[in-house]
């Protein structure tokens, strides 16, 4: 019966999807049976008991046994279906303890995904094959709904609370996700691609952060200046903030709080970013967070290149 399943249901991306499909196909055949039974009796009656002059029809008003049977038998079947449905639902409701967590933020009309290591991606989702993954979701505006078709899971995303879904992707390749709760003009375009990667390509994707390697380093740096929050303490126009401005730093001498003076070269900048407490600039407090382990190699390179371009201004 696989031919029928693959005709009426989408591809299966997880063992759970296969379970749902088995249940679905059971209901399809059950429905076909009952439809044929009901339509059969109706059509048979229309043909066999067509009006003829002089017809006499029996005066059957009721039959308790028959009516009991056709109440209780469907009820019993429905109870089986109820329990089967609850079983599947409960399984989909509780993620395994070791599931990876991805934060999903939905807003009109984009998806934003954030990984535990701080990697962010827009409308593009990468997960590792055979590793259960859990999504913790919230909305910034109206209600949306995260629907991963091939995993047979979906859940609404609300503005005032977190909701969760999880799945265990077992089929490497591209799948589709979409918004299933009406959210206005761009609702039907609010979709994206789910890549289930094998271990190697998943690691590679994490290293590059999903950022296109073709972006020039200084351009990347200027993007990270905003997205990594540097801009909340550093300006690029020379005005002081919680931290020194980046304007005119590179290539020039810097006074440190311990009285030494150093030339701000690549190594100094790199060290200041990763472990800023190593050398404190005179007149400032040691409040800058440690970025060691948070920024990727290429990202550090990008920031250094960006600060370099501000050096001569």
């Amino acid at each position, binding site marked *: 019966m696989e031919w029928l399943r693959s005709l009426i249901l989408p591809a299966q991306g997880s063992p759970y999807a296969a379970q749902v499909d088995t249940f679905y196909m059971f209901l399809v055949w059950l429905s076909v049976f009952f439809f044929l039974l009901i339509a059969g009796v109706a059509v048979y009656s*229309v043909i066999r008991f067509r009006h003829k002059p002089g017809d006499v029809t029996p005066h059957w008003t009721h039959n308790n046994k028959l009516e009991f049977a056709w109440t209780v038998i469907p009820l019993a079947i429905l109870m089986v279906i109820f329990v089967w449905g609850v079983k599947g639902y409960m399984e989909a409701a509780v993620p395994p303890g070791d599931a990876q967590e991805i934060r999903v933020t939905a807003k009109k009309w984009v998806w934003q995904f954030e990984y535990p290591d701080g990697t962010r991606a827009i409308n593009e989702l990468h997960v590792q094959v055979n590793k259960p993954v859990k999504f913790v979701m919230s909305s910034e505006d109206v209600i949306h709904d995260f629907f991963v078709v091939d995993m047979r899971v979906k859940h609404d995303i609300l503005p005032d609370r977190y909701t969760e879904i999880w799945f265990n992707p077992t089929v490497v390749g591209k799948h589709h996700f979409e918004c299933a709760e009406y959210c206005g003009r761009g609702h039907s375009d609010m979709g994206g691609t789910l890549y289930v990667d094998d271990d190697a390509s998943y690691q590679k994707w994490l290293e590059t952060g999903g950022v296109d390697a073709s972006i020039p380093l200084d351009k990347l740096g200027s993007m990270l200046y905003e997205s990594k929050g540097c801009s909340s303490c550093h300006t690029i126009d020379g005005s002081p903030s919680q931290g020194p401005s980046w304007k005119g730093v590179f290539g020039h001498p810097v006074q440190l709080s311990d009285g030494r003076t150093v030339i701000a070269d690549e190594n100094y900048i790199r060290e200041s970013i990763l472990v800023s407490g190593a050398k404190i600039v005179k007149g400032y407090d040691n409040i800058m967070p440690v970025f060691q382990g948070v920024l990727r190699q290429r990202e550090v390179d990008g920031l250094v290149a960006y600060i370099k371009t501000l050096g001569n201004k």
Partner: protein
Amino acid sequence: MADVISAPFHAGTTPVERRNYLTEPKGLWSWLTTVDHKRIGIMYLISVMAFFLVGGIFALLIRLSLFDPSHVILGHKMLDAETYNKVFTMHGVIMVFLFIIPSIPAALGNFVLPMMLGAKDVAFPRLNLASFYIYWAGAALAMVAIVTGGVDTGWTFYTPYSTSTDTSVAWMAMGIFIAGFSSIFTGLNFIATIHKLRAPGMGWFDMPLFCWGMYATALMQVLATPVLAITLLLMTIERLFRIGIFDASLGGDPVLFQHFFWFYSHPAVYIMIVPGMAIVSEIIPVFSRKTIFGYRMIAFSSIGIALIGFLVWGHHMFVAGQSQTAVVVFSFLTFLVAIPSAIKVWNWLATMYHGSITLETPMLYAISFILLFTIGGLTGVFLGALSIDVHLTDTYFVVAHFHYVMMGGTVMGFLGGLHYWWPKITGRMYHERLGQIAAALVFIGFNATFFPQFIMGGQGMPRRYYNYLPQFQPMHAFSTVGSWIIGAGLFLTLGYLLASLRKPYDAPDNPWGGKTMEWQTQSPPLTENFEVQPVATHGPYDYFPVGTH
């Protein structure tokens, strides 16, 4: 004992021009100020048919726009995304609130219910007229909403979208708020009428089953509609005065809106389908010339649906953010409420079995109802089953499911009833052969339109989508062609029904051989319905030879 077909079919007294409710008193003013339930029923009938036409044109536009993912038909760009969203919203709002809900109770029910009970009128004739004008006041506000930019929330008005969009939501909400009162008034009137105005000798279990269906519907209208009114009012207050009730950014709870909305709108589903079932329960025995099987079970199942129907609203919210316990309980209750509906289907089949069946247009619609409602009901089982609903909810599967119930069920029942009582209402017979052809067209077109939507939904096509993946194009195109076939069938119906009005009265008093009381008076009836107060001497479905009972 056996039921013998007493009178030869289609026979009756030869119709002559007699005084009747249509011709006296004369003049437009006498119509607009009438308190005659039959005239109010006709005014309602014309109104709901007009909105059926408007809602239907919106439906054809939706389908046309989805014919191709490019939205280009014959070189014309059909709708843009924003217009599309408004069109499907207006289709839903008009069909639900201005067509289906009043269609059977307020239009056909108003006309036949008092006559079926042997009464002169409903219990509160002026309240009945008030209901009609309130309906129009609501409809007028809805029209204002449409011409002042339309509404793009979907008929469900979910917050916070509905409180943040800049379309005419407040006008529309007030329109529905007001129209709701017309529904409550009709319900009140029917409850009182059924309690107090039954003919001498007619006990509760001697009433035609249509009256039981109307009674169950009226209970739901009276108990559920106020909740919708409150909900829409709160939403409008939030929208206008920024008071946080449902909007999270103002400190409200968006899921609370959904609970309120579905607390009305699930019973509303039954407000729509129970009257359809009630009509089928009349048509099947008459055209099978056999007494109804399981009268009490059908009557009680209507009441059962009305009661359990209040406890299942959460099945619209399995993935919306309610507790898992609530989800499981609502799933359980949903399976329970399926049983009374199933019982009715078995009873109708048992009534047809060993009957003496003819297939005039009303019977064709009744059989269509049974077949389509069965599909609607069986696919409802899919949606009640939790793990499957998680996949199917908010997809085209749901769209197909509720169209099979609302259109395949209620609208088929309405059309069946319209043809069944047309001779009584107008005093004219419509063209029978054309009626059968139109019924066949509607049946075929309906399945062509909506069956592919089950498959698309199962494959993951979300509802309310303007753009869609190219893989769905063939099925969308097929569905669109189906909508044209439905359209052809319905326009044909409109044509031959209007044409029949040009003829002189030619309908017999009892063209189908029915045993309920509305067939005992002339066609069209007198203003006071019966010349003398009728007395119930036999059951509504007793096909005995005349005089032997």
